[in-house]
């Protein structure tokens, strides 16, 4: 199981990472592993705005559909269009090519309040026991 050291996490298994002025978001390795083969990703409309904790999309495998939540408030300025044809990228590279959205944060400080990689790892260890 990988835990990207540069990313911050939610307990609902999303990650957020600084990308210049923007914040990239996706789902963790732990999340993709427990969902299994991902067959569909539903992403929000460009230009829409969400608050931290809002559901912005859905990641679907054959056995589960999971809402994904905003790690940070802001406007959606990029979505990962490649996932439409190859949603399995979320499985193979969840922290890289499998990113979901890029957000222009309305309150960049929110990022620091999220779980660190170590804290998130400890949290997931607790889930499996």
């Amino acid at each position: 199981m990988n835990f990207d050291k540069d990313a911050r996490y939610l307990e609902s298994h999303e990650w957020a990472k600084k990308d210049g002025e923007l914040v990239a978001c996706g789902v963790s390795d732990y999340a993709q592993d427990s969902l299994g083969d991902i067959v569909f990703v539903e992403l929000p409309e460009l230009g829409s705005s969400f608050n931290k904790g809002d559901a912005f999309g859905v990641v679907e495998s054959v056995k589960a559909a999971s809402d994904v939540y905003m790690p940070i408030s802001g406007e959606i300025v990029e979505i990962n269009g490649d996932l439409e044809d190859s949603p399995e990228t979320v499985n193979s590279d969840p922290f890289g090519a499998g990113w979901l959205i890029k957000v222009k944060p309305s309150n960049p400080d929110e990022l620091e309040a999220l779980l660190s990689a170590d804290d998130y790892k400890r949290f997931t260890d607790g889930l499996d026991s």
Partner: protein
Amino acid sequence: MAYIANSDQDRAKMLTAIGVGSIQELFDDIPKSLRFPELGLPAPYSELDCMAELESLAVENLSTGAAISFLGAGAWNHFIPSVVPFLAGRGEFATAYTPYQAEASQGTLQSVFEYQSMISELIGMEVVNASHYDGSTSLAEAAMMSVNVSRGKRKKVLVSGGVHPEYRRVMQTYLQAMEVELLGINESSSPSPEAFLEAGGNPASTYAGDPRAEVEALAKAADENTACVVVSSPDFFGRVIDLDGIAEQLKPKGVLLVVNTEPISLAVFRDPGSYGADIVTGEGQPLGIDLSYGGPYLGIFGTRKDLVRKMPGRLAGATVDTEGSRGFVLTLNTREQHIRRDKATSNICTNQALMALRAAIYLTAMGPEGLKRVAEICYHRSHYAAERINELPGYSVPDLGAPVGGAQPQSVFFKEFVVRTPRPAKDLINELAEEGIIPGLDLGRYFPGRRNELLIAVTEMNSRLEIDALVEALEEQS
């Protein structure tokens, strides 16, 4: 007991094996004072007595087999080829469960796939689900889906007065908790269920003018708060509506066009996909399903592929096995209640699979030419009947352009038409039924202002002789 295998000896042996003294002990968890109530039901009937009892009830009904019937209005007396009940009655189909274990259910799954394929062709939609309970619940779920497509933001559903009054009532039941308003033309607010019932049905359905003009008005009235416009074609009164250009008017406003249709008519009339419908529903009963006093029937439901994830109901899809052979599975299950629970597209679980199978067998047996022939016979014979009745003194058929109560434009109808009668339709029906003819439906049943109107359905089951007998009987009543 006939339906239990284990004898008293078996039972004793089993109790010993599990170490329990009596069967009663297995129920110790149940509140003692309430355990084993005496049920006020008769003693078991023998198979002979049971059959006799049911036969004695069945003969009390004036069925289509015992009468000359022109009843339609949502359920029609159509020919059912012998292969349909024979094949659908096979235990391997009838006594299987939902195909959760795909490898042990390929018969059901492939037949559902064939059903989806043939209905898709018929209604002109890219995706067809494995069925709903009947036409009315399909339509209600289509309205709900439209609201869900707008992510719950649009709270109005505009409904044509040509929609079956019972369907509209079912939509009202389904939508009552979603705070969605069902509105017709000239309705400023959704009538309460009570008011709706007191009106005897759909308050907007006294509408008898040009159905195309009504749909145009609905399309114009649709706004950014409207989830969909719901139209029926053929409508409740049998009229086929020209819906060309309506979808184009709705699309810029983000409003979906939902069309409820009748499947046999689509053998000769344009499919709703050809004029841009977003969701198509219909009652599949004409496709080889018994009248059976209203059910079980078949709810047809189809939509565009880009809306498939918002669609309710089960779906069969093709796939491969580990050796690369083609097979079928239930797919996109994540939309459904057993996975998505409170976020599912609908709560539907059990559907009408065996009825969908009947429809698949029916369409296969009929083929394109057979289905077209049935549709053409319905069309020609209903027009023959309408023309003849229109000539009778005291009767008129408005859809033929009859000048009753002002100029009425001519409408196209498929197999049903409205007849204005010289006496209350209810009285006519009661008198003719004594002679073994059910001349149609009393429109006063749904619309208090239309007591002197009959809705007559003519299908391939009504020979020219039967039609002539009806005309003669009506003439005697004028």
